[in-house]
């Protein structure tokens, strides 16, 4: 029987022919036709047009044909949801079939049809199948729950399938248990906080029993699930380890690796002085070595994991160096990984062997591998002091080969050796200098220059050598330029008499002719140092260097711990946490190793016992954290404090104290405790007897607003229009504009003026990414063509759903406007007040907690001069722009307003406004978790109050 013929049909009109065949009366012909359809589907042809005809073939007692039709259904049901309903009846009927294989097939396929309408029909059959008498059907149904959950999580919960699934963990059949565990683990992953996989000693015991009986794949599911459990104490930990260790002899490498994961994790809890701890360590080595005789792909996975294990527990494999020796026929990815581990395991005991091997590798063909081998020799020298001399001579041998990339790599590592062992191997410098001309890689050139500069006093022609590099200074990479600058300055400090000209030359090249700020700055520093105090310069430039570390490329400890919890998985292959490559919520929980419960000296890094518990920050406003995170993630530079640091004067401290006390008193939490807060308590914010009549002020504002020509309700601040795009730059188009916020809608109001001679049409607008995601909510509506000397007012509604990128200043907005003439770019700044949202009034209680919660470093203080308002008027004005006064207190003639506002992206800003009667200078203290926000908010404060 040859089915390959189905792949070869490519003629036109094929679909039509197939249609006829599918509707044929002959069973054989039908089956042939379906096969052809599947073959076409495989090679990527669209055969969805045949949907009704294929589904018609479903009612058959030929199982092979049925399976083919199901395969088709799974592929195309989604594109033809209405047609797919036709299939439901057959499914439901099949779920009742006396043959368990057919029941299972139906429930398995139904779960793969991702059509909402079908899932409703699926529930009843699924419920029955979960309780089927046949284990084959139950194990299939268990997986089906996970499928359904993926389509409609709510439905699964509502129908109580999760509880049924949990019950299956106690099933008598090991495969049902294993599939139920797999399904539950996956569902639990998308609900990080649910206690779905309620692992307790009883369930663990059930799992361990099933572990001995189920298939190799089932063992993997169970072991991976076990790894998420945190034992209560070292006893339980040991007993689980004892029952898991037999798995280390399984033929399936994945079972072994998952067992290793469980053991590595639970071992953390065992006291190191326990005999069993030592036994366990010994038991781990042989299976890890055995993994290296598996197929190359698995070897690769194993090696990536061993790399982690060796970093966490070097003692396990310290005697197994030989197995990591590279074989001539190993694939390159295995070779590179082995090399990495060899370096990690290198010690005084085995260094001779390792070096001999590395020397062999350095003559191989693959460039990457050779380079890494050369580098490894250097690392051995640094790691094992006794071997340094041998390493250096090996490197010299390699340099003699004159193979370009070998020489360059060797020079780079010799530089590190010089740093580690100063004044020891300088005799080789002459050999190095011979190869100067062949160096074409920046790293090697930089290393060579460093060596020449560092040992300038011993190299007679150091000045000539360095000068030779100087000729093409501007073509060098920054790395080399910086090194050359430092090198020549060193040379000058060592041999001042003959190199004055050279140093002048390099300083002027670096400072005057370069546009690289780093280079320029370094140049200027040297220049000033040399011209003011050469002695100090010597002390600075020729200072003793800090030691370089022995180990390189170590994974950062917290990441390492997390990766140990992911042994065997992709995360351990990539050496990245799952969140780095998995989309959505899955696998984003950070796993941690459990802490030791045993003797005190047992664990290197004392970790709290918090495995799999996400770090819950006690934040009052959780959404703010997230959004802030978003903002900062997009930030290219680490957040720095903007604005002047708050002066730590007594006044400041006093204000803080008063604030704390005052707010406490408002909440009634601390009644009568502190006499100083008496007045604040006596004067509730709403009734200020001597205040300027507030309604009048409001009315006045309104009048002003009306006279401005643009009706702004509720007195929201609106800056006057400014010219954004002058006509000169806009080829005759002048744009002036401003931003407003009216009942929650941000608008960009523009006046477009045509100062050119021709008519302008086809206006369109676009924003660049900006700090708060401002974007046009609709197209720019300029309905009529703009004739010469005409102007038009346009209001463009905005939303904050656009892409986000941090801008400098924060409220900067880059705009592109297009018309029939050209595209014009300009940037403008919007007042932050348009981003103050209407729901920015914080509960006073929350305010208090939040204020205390934000570190004092985040507080920024500003002064507003020449503001002739009293506190109530100020409060009203600010309220018009969605800055809400939450509380007010008066202390010795000074009014303090506590205010909150919320930006559209959920960032809260808390403020304290100090107004002293008769003093036109206001003081504003702003607190916000995002340190770059207050400066911009302050500008709005000033603008609103002064308007």
């Amino acid at each position, binding site marked *: 029987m040859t*089915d390959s013929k189905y792949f070869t049909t490519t003629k036109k009109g094929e679909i039509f022919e197939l249609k006829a065949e599918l509707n044929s009366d002959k069973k054989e012909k039908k089956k042939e036709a379906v096969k052809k359809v599947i073959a076409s589907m*495989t090679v990527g042809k669209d055969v969805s047009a045949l949907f009704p005809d294929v589904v018609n073939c479903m009612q058959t007692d030929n199982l092979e044909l049925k399976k083919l039709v199901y395969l088709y259904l799974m592929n195309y049901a989604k594109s033809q949801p209405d047609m797919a309903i036709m299939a439901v009846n057959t499914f439901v009927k099949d779920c009742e079939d006396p043959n368990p294989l057919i029941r299972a097939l139906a429930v398995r396929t139904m779960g793969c049809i991702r059509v909402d309408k079908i899932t409703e029909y699926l529930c009843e059959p699924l419920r029955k199948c979960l309780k089927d008498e046949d284990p*084959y059907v139950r194990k299939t149904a268990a997986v089906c729950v996970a499928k359904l959950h993926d389509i409609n999580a709510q439905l699964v919960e509502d129908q109580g399938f999760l509880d049924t699934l949990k019950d299956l963990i106690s099933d008598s059949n090991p495969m049902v248990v294993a599939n139920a565990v797999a399904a539950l683990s996956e569902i639990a992953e998308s609900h990080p906080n649910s206690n779905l996989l309620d692992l307790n000693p009883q369930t663990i015991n059930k799992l361990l029993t099933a572990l001995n009986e189920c298939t190799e794949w089932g063992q993997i599911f169970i072991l991976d699930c076990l790894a998420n459990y945190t034992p209560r104490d070292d006893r339980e930990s040991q007993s689980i380890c004892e029952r898991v260790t*037999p798995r280390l002899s*399984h033929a399936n490498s994945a079972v072994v690796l998952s067992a290793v994961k469980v053991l590595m994790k639970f071992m953390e809890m065992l006291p190191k002085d326990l005999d069993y701890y030592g036994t366990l360590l010994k038991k781990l080595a042989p299976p890890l070595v055995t993994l290296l005789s598996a197929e190359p792909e*698995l070897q690769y996975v194993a090696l990536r994991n061993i790399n982690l294990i060796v970093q966490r527990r070097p003692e396990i494999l310290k005697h197994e160096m030989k197995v990591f020796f590279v074989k001539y026929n190993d694939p390159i990815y295995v070779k590179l990984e082995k090399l990495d581990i060899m370096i990690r395991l290198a010690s005084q005991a085995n260094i001779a062997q390792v070096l001999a091997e590395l020397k062999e590798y350095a003559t191989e063909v693959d460039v990457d591998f050779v380079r890494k081998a050369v580098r490894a020799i250097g690392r051995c020298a640094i790691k094992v002091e006794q071997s340094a001399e041998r390493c250096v001579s090996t490197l010299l041998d390699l340099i003699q080969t004159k193979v370009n990339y070998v020489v360059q790599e060797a020079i780079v590592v010799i530089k590190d050796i010089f740093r580690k062992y100063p004044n020891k191997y300088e005799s080789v410098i002459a050999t190095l200098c011979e190869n100067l001309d062949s160096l074409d890689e920046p790293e090697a050139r930089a290393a060579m220059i460093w060596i020449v500069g560092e040992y300038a006093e011993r190299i007679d022609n150091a000045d000539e050598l360095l000068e030779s590099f100087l000729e093409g200074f501007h073509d060098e990479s920054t790395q080399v330029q910086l090194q050359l600058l430092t090198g020549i300055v060193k040379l000058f400090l060592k041999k001042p008499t003959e190199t004055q000209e050279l140093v002048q030359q390099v300083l002027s090249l670096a400072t005057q002719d370069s546009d690289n700020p780093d280079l320029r700055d370094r140049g200027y520093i040297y220049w000033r140092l040399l011209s003011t105090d050469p002695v100090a310069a010597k002390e600075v430039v020729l200072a003793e260097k800090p030691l370089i570390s022995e180990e390189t490329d170590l994974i950062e400890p917290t990441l390492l711990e997390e990766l140990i919890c992911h042994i065997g998985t992709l995360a351990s292959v990539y050496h990245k946490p799952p969140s780095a490559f998995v989309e959505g919520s899955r696998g984003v929980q950070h796993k941690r190793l459990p802490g030791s419960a045993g003797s005190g000296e047992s664990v290197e890094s004392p970790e709290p016992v918090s495995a799999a518990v996400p770090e819950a920050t006690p934040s009052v406003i959780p959404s703010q954290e997230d959004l802030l995170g978003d903002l900062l993630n997009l930030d290219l530079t680490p957040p720095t404090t903007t604005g002047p640091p708050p002066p730590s004067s007594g006044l400041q401290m006093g204000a803080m104290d008063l604030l704390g006390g005052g707010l406490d008193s408002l909440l009634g939490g601390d009644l009568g405790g502190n006499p100083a807060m008496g007045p604040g308590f006596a004067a509730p914010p709403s009734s200020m007897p001597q205040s300027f009549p507030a309604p009048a002020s409001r009315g006045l504002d309104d009048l002003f607003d009306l006279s401005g020509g643009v009706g702004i309700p509720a007195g929201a601040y609106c800056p006057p229009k400014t010219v954004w795009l002058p006509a000169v730059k806009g080829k005759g188009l002048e744009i002036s504009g401003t931003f407003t916020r009216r009942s929650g809608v941000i608008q960009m109001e523009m006046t477009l003026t045509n100062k050119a001679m021709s008519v302008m049409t086809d206006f369109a607008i676009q924003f660049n990414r900006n700090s708060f995601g401002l974007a046009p909510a609709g197209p720019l509506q300029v309905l009529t063509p703009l004739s010469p000397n005409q102007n038009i007012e346009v209001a463009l509604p905005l939303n904050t759903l656009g892409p986000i990128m941090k801008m400098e200043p924060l409220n900067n907005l880059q705009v592109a406007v297009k018309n029939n003439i050209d595209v014009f770019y300009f940037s403008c700044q919007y007042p932050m007040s348009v981003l103050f949202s209407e729901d920015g009034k914080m509960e006073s209680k929350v305010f208090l907690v939040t204020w205390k919660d934000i570190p004092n470093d985040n507080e920024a203080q500003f002064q507003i001069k020449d503001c002739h308002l009293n506190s109530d008027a100020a409060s009203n004005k600010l309220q018009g722009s969605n800055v809400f006064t939450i509380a007010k207190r008066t202390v010795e003639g000074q009014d303090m307003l506590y205010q909150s506002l919320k930006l559209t992206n959920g960032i809260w800003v808390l403020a304290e406004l100090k107004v002293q009667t008769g003093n036109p200078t206001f003081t504003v203290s702003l607190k916000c978790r995002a340190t770059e926000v207050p400066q911009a908010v302050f500008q709005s404060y000033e603008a609103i109050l002064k308007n």
Partner: protein
Amino acid sequence: MIGGLFIYNHKGEVLISRVYRDDIGRNAVDAFRVNVIHARQQVRSPVTNIARTSFFHVKRSNIWLAAVTKQNVNAAMVFEFLYKMCDVMTAYFGKISEENIKNNFVLIYELLDEILDFGYPQNSETGALKTFITQQGIKGQTKEEQSQITSQVTGQIGWRREGIKYRRNELFLDVLESVNLLMSPQGQVLSAHVSGRVVMKSYLSGMPECKFGMNDKIVIDKQGKGGGTDDQSIAIDDCTFHQCVRLSKFDSERSISFIPPDGEYELMRYRTTKDIILPFRVIPLVREVGRTKLEVKVVIKSNFKPSLLAQKIEVRIPTPLNTSGVQVICMKGKAKYKASENAIVWKIKRMAGMKESQISAEIELLPTNDKKKWARPPISMNFEVPFAPSGLKVRYLKVFESKLNYSDHDVIKWVRYIGRSGIYETRC
């Protein structure tokens, strides 16, 4: 879990495409073809991440099998599954080739549906699968047969079905070892190990309980002097077992007990590094005469009982890329210079123990101005010997079947030892 599985031919055309998860789109098929199969460089990793989608691939001759996922899956499991998939396909239709895959695509889809559900590997034992995935339909089965199938597929002994009957109860044990060596030019052993497999072919009736014993040092030492006196025991570094072996029993008592699958399977794998009998020793001598000539002399010595015969001996002596001509003289066997393989291949059909043989060759080189030195790959060797280089001996394999009336004595047992060369290299 696994989101999809694709099989491609060497050109990157899709032969099989089965998607299990919604997050894997049709474009994933193309992404792998473009980025891996059609990529010009050598494959730098068996795991590739393209646009947040991870691809695991293995190659069998010129067929690519790729598993795709977007989750943090168990990577070791995915590869084990891909190998298993290859085994299953081979068991069903022989060699994995484009022709065979196209001919059996319906069967492959059926298998993929069965052994991978929503990306979770399910029972993939060929013995069990063959009972109900037959390409013949399962119409004729009785109710009993059906429930027997399902209980076998899901059961504790998923690898064996009930009711097997043989007229003659027979079993074959093959101890297959591959001995690996890396030796320095001076004859110093840099690394040597044996990786061995015990392969069993069982034709036994019913559900026989088996117990396997070998000269494992730990077991012999435990039994004290009462054990075999002339038996040399060996230290096994590590061993792994087929899933039929009760691992917890091995862990506690170090006894190997199991109910075997029917037919051929691999009972165990092991590795030893101590006291290995190296069947051959290679003594190389390479002399560079000027810039255009190399003189090579290689002596091989056999190091085992004179009564035994080694077979299929092949010594491969690499030659530089700029070789223009080679003259070979050998005392025994045939030697040929193969320009396409850059090596002199010396073949000897048979060789008894404690003998030695020699080959000498003159290699003419073309003058080159290539600065890079010739890397001198090691001299490698292939052979087959009728003993186990690790020293492993089978002590017993006992069969108990309580329900049927045959005893251990009625079973005909055959044991055979074959030692083969693994990577057996001597640097020169």
